[in-house]
């Protein structure tokens, strides 16, 4: 069967788009890596929002809101396929009578091909990797990872637990942990100390969404009232230990400090997931405010490849509420492109969606200014490419030897050739190239991404042969 739309990702944007497309009676298949709907932000929402669950209470109202969206999604009539890994997306040849996409999926060890007239990538974001000495030690993980442990297994970190980084997520997580009786040894804030001054110009715009601002301030006040140790202006973080994390070291303008550590949770903001759109050679643009790439989209969420749409944080980091609005807008765009929505009706629907999106984005310029991507020098001995264990020194040397081309550096060093395909090192490699050639980061670009998007085993490929035969 050829679906009208294949949606990849069942987070806020994917679920919302599925509901809206089904409401227009289009056939929809939703492919998602997770076992249940919700994406990362609402991960485990069905499981956790059982009546009387303390965890659901502590995770907060915005989390619980996901339960309603997941319920509508389950009832919308989309063909929902959890635990499905997409490893390749292709457009059928120019000789095909009608445009069609093929999405290659692995599910329970079996390869499948899904065919659809339109594809919507609602694949969200990942945490920005920022290398520092010792970040590969067991015991160091991201704040997002710890929050996933909380949402999917009800697990709290223990041992001296340190949180280091900046942004809304570490604050929210610290707040949730405290409410659940977890212990935090300290919060190391890496945001520059002059945040208030820099944030001021964006404050009035952000006040359009004063409720969100008030919530952030309340989290901070709660942590202060609880007597949480907080250090500001933190730089030069190091994780030390023999086979695992034992201690951390950091600097502030007042000097160097050290403390024993069992778990170190780090977070420096989010970047859109762009590997699929990069591999499909869609045009991308560099966002200076968010220091990351994003696919170029038209007003309907369509990429520079006809029939391929992007919604949610994969289109730029704006949060869950904006992701719902972007899901709605993409559904309008898809319905319009499939000629089931007149131009006039589509424009009307878009205006409403645009308004919701602009409101949901009100605090974004402020947040982007308060929590910029860290710029501190990465010392030569730090591992940058976690897969191939390459250091900043090795990458610098390669970057300086020839042209400012990420593909050249990739083939000379193997950085980005491991299984993660540069999801961890790509931006850092590009930054080191930009430094070596003294050019703006926006001009360096990103190395080419080739399929498969996820490693595929020979056995899984063989099962595809059988499925096709």
């Amino acid at each position, binding site marked *: 069967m050829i679906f009208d739309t294949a949606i990849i990702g069942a987070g806020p944007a994917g679920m919302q788009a599925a509901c809206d497309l089904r409401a227009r009676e289009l056939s929809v298949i939703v492919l998602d*890596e*997770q*076992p249940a709907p919700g994406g*990362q932000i609402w991960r*485990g929402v069905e*499981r956790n929002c059982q009546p009387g*669950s*303390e*965890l659901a209470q502590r995770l907060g109202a915005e989390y619980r809101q996901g339960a309603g969206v997941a319920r509508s999604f389950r009832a919308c009539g989309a063909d929902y396929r959890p*635990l499905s*890994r997409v490893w390749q997306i292709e457009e059928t040849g120019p000789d095909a009578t009608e445009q069609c996409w093929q999405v290659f999926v692995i599910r329970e*060890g079996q390869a499948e091909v899904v065919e659809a007239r339109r594809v919507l990538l609602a694949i969200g974001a*990942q*945490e920005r*990797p920022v290398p520092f000495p010792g970040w*590969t030690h*067991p*015991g*160091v*993980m*991201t704040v*997002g*990872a*710890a929050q*996933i*442990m909380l949402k*999917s*297994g*009800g*697990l*709290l*970190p*223990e*041992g001296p637990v340190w949180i280091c980084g900046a942004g809304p997520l570490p604050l929210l997580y610290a707040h949730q942990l405290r409410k*659940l009786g977890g212990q935090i040894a300290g919060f190391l804030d890496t945001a520059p100390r002059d945040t208030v001054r820099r944030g001021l110009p964006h404050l009035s715009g952000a006040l359009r969404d004063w409720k969100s601002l008030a919530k952030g301030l309340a989290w901070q006040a709660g942590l202060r009232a609880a007597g949480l140790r907080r250090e500001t202006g933190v730089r030069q973080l190091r994780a030390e230990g023999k*086979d*695992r994390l034992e201690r951390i070291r950091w600097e502030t303008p007042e000097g160097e400090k050290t403390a024993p550590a*069992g*778990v170190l949770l780090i977070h420096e903001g989010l970047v859109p*997931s762009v590997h699929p759109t990069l591999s499909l050679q869609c045009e991308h643009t560099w966002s200076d405010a968010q220091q990351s790439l994003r696919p170029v989209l038209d007003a309907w969420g369509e990429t520079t490849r006809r029939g391929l749409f992007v919604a949610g944080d994969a289109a730029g980091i704006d949060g869950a509420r904006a992701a719902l609005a972007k899901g709605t807008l993409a559904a309008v765009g898809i319905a319009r492109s499939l000629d089931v929505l007149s131009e006039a009706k589509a424009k009307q629907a878009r205006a409403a969606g645009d308004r919701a999106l602009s409101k949901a984005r009100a605090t974004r310029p402020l947040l982007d200014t308060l929590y910029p991507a860290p710029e501190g020098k990465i010392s030569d001995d730090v591992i940058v490419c*976690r*897969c*191939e*264990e390459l250091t900043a020194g090795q990458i610098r040397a390669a970057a300086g030897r020839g042209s400012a081309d990420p593909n050249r550096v990739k083939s000379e060093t193997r950085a980005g*050739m*491991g*299984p*993660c395909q540069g*999801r*961890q090192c790509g931006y850092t490699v590009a930054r080191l190239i930009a430094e070596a050639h003294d050019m703006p980061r926006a001009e360096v670009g990103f190395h080419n991404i080739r399929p*498969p998007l*996820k*490693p*595929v*085993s*020979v056995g899984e*490929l063989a099962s595809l042969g059988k499925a096709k035969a």
Partner: protein
Amino acid sequence: MFRPLPDSSEGPTVTVFVEGQPVEAYVGETAASVLLRHLGTARTTSISESPRAPFCMMGCCFDCLAEIDGKGSTQSCLEPVRDGMTIARQMSARKVVAR
């Protein structure tokens, strides 16, 4: 490294085998989370043979590659626990294929 909330320890569990040892796992958690709780690591790297542990828990770092039900190079953070699942660390060998 991680301890369960009362909600989890009183909730439904399954039995999985971590390198041969039967252990209780909470329904909803992943093989990566079981590895973290019981062994603290998921693999050793192929170049320097240093230990690594799940880092992102959402499929984008590949530091959770482990042997799940006998299948190597599996992203254990994308594998929810099932009753009887076997989980083992992946030592050094570079087994990722089809690149």
